[in-house]
């Protein structure tokens, strides 16, 4: 029999028939189990046994981690057709072994969606997710158009108190921030453009530049972005929380259409107030320019307003309002859609809220680009 004792925990004794006895000494616990297993693997690699006996008579202490690792080792050896036996267990060691569910050693882990599988699989999975999201978005859009159509055909079916509630939330409550940001943007545009125009004596054209920029583009765009941040996220959070608390399921089982009940009031409210907010933003933007024009460019109020009136046409204002209606539909629709996609708990609600804002801003910019081209050709 050959005996090897170079290790701290394991003494291995082999015989010519290929049987190895591993005497395990000391502690086999969380703090030592790695070293123990390294020594065992080294001994088994050197010997290539046909049968392994793990003798625990010299063991001082065994915890559940140590027991699990030893059982796992026995399992792996048996899977490689090497008979393995644990012998001379103390009473304490036996009790710990009995606590462990040996079936768990052979049950494979349940696959999860988050299992790491490589970059190509991740790209494929992400692509499929984008496709699925697009399909779901189109289905949502179809349901929304149908629900809006039904509401217009039957106005009594609309929950008007809810519409008014959301008009106040999305519109009235947003007046301070929309006014302030528009005023500041008007100030900035007027100031920056004046730096370029003043050397050429073109002070008065600051009024034209500010009014055209604000009314045609920045007014509807900024207003929509602010509403997306304030109200789009709120819609997503509200509906997402209702999903988490089974409130939407409760509505469905009571026979209520969640679109009519939850989405239509929000979309209708947004489509009513955002154009009004846009007009309000336009006024404040022009006011910001006026402040710069009067205080820094020696323009009179009359001159500034007259030049503004010459620069803006009814078509521009109308186009601005049409854009804002479309933007409102996108904001409220995306917010509600993301809310309905919530699955799980608070983290999912947070993700939905962020996604609602980001997606809404993206779609607003895309729609604005389309409008730029369409309006150019219409004009």
């Amino acid at each position: 029999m050959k005996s090897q004792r170079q290790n701290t925990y394991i003494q291995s004794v082999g015989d010519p028939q290929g049987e190895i006895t591993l005497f395990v000494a000391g502690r086999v616990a969380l703090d030592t189990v790695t070293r123990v297993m390294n020594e065992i693997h080294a001994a088994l690699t050197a010997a290539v046994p046909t049968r392994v006996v793990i003798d625990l008579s010299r063991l001082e202490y065994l915890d559940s981690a140590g027991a699990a690792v030893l059982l796992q080792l026995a399992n792996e050896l048996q899977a490689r057709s090497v008979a393995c036996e644990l012998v001379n267990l103390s009473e304490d060691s036996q009790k710990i072994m009995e606590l462990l569910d040996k079936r768990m050693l052979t049950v494979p882990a349940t696959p999860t969606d988050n299992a790491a599988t490589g970059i190509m699989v991740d790209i494929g999975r992400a692509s499929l997710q984008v496709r699925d999201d697009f399909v779901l978005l189109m289905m949502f859009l179809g349901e929304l158009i149908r629900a809006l159509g039904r509401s217009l055909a039957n106005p009594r079916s609309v929950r008007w108190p809810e519409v008014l509630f959301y008009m106040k939330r999305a519109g009235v409550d947003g007046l301070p921030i929309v006014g302030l940001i528009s005023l500041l943007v008007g100030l900035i545009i007027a100031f920056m453009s004046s730096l370029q125009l003043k050397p050429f004596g073109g002070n008065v054209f600051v009024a034209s530049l500010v009014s055209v920029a604000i009314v045609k583009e920045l007014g509807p765009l900024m207003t929509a972005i602010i509403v997306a941040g304030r109200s789009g996220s709120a819609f997503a959070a509200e509906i997402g929380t209702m999903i988490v608390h089974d409130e939407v399921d409760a509505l469905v089982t009571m026979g209520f259409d969640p679109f009519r009940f939850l989405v239509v009031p929000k979309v209708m409210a947004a489509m009513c107030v955002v154009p009004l907010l846009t007009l309000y933003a336009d006024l404040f933007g022009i006011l910001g320019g006026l402040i710069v024009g009067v205080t820094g460019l020696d323009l009179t109020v009359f001159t500034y307003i007259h030049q503004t009136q010459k620069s803006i046409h009814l078509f521009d204002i109308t186009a601005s309002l049409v854009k804002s209606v479309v933007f409102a539909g996108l904001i409220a629709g995306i917010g509600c859609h993301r809310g309905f996609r919530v699955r799980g708990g608070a983290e999912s609600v947070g993700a939905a809220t962020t996604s609602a804002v980001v997606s809404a801003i993206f779609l607003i910019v895309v729609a604005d680009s389309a409008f730029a081209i369409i309006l150019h050709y219409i004009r």
Partner: protein
Amino acid sequence: MNDKTIIRVEGLTARYGGITILENVSFDVARGEIFVIMGGSGCGKSTLLKHMIGLYEPAGGRVIINGIDIHSADEEALLAIRTNMGVLFQSGGLLGSMTLAENVALPLGEYTDLSPAMIALVVGMKLGMVKLRGYERHLPSELSGGMQKRAGLARAMALDPAILFFDEPSAGLDPVIAAELDAMIKNINEGMGTTMVIVTHALESILAIAHRVVMLDKEAHGIIAEGDPRILRQQADDMRVTDFLNRRIS
């Protein structure tokens, strides 16, 4: 399907992605009985219930309520079924932005032509049945879990439905409140003849109120026992059933 059967589940198969939860599950629920779906955690009880109330589409099979397949019914027929059933969700399912009175009044306002005064009267009566009279103006967030459940029950009963579904009604409740809820369920069943379908693994409730049970098993993906729980407890052939009903570890 005879007159005594109000719900029939035929060959129901339920899957999440590629994972089979339930396979070929079939049973009938008789009119007026308290029918309990029981089983260990993860065996598919809530999944089965959600298929029965039409929230999930089955991968196979049918759910027939009052002679109508709920998953292929047209809108009108489905609405008729929905207004004739009530559901108490595990979390209560109350709309957080509405008071208790508004929650209970919601289906009344939508599906009846009762005047506001009559609705208020009915709401008061329903809340009184669940011992919540006086809490009409409270929001759900201002109530305890047990009170939310009772309010959810009041709303589920608002239209005097023929069937009430319960998803773990005593989850999270202390034993006294749970026993009170069981008593309410039994009283409503006896007083109004309402069919009750209850998903639970609360043994005390099962033995106290169930007329008949089915037991689901995770590994079997379906039913392993059906019958009177008091008899099954003593005489079931399958040890899993007797172990469950006697709280025994094999």
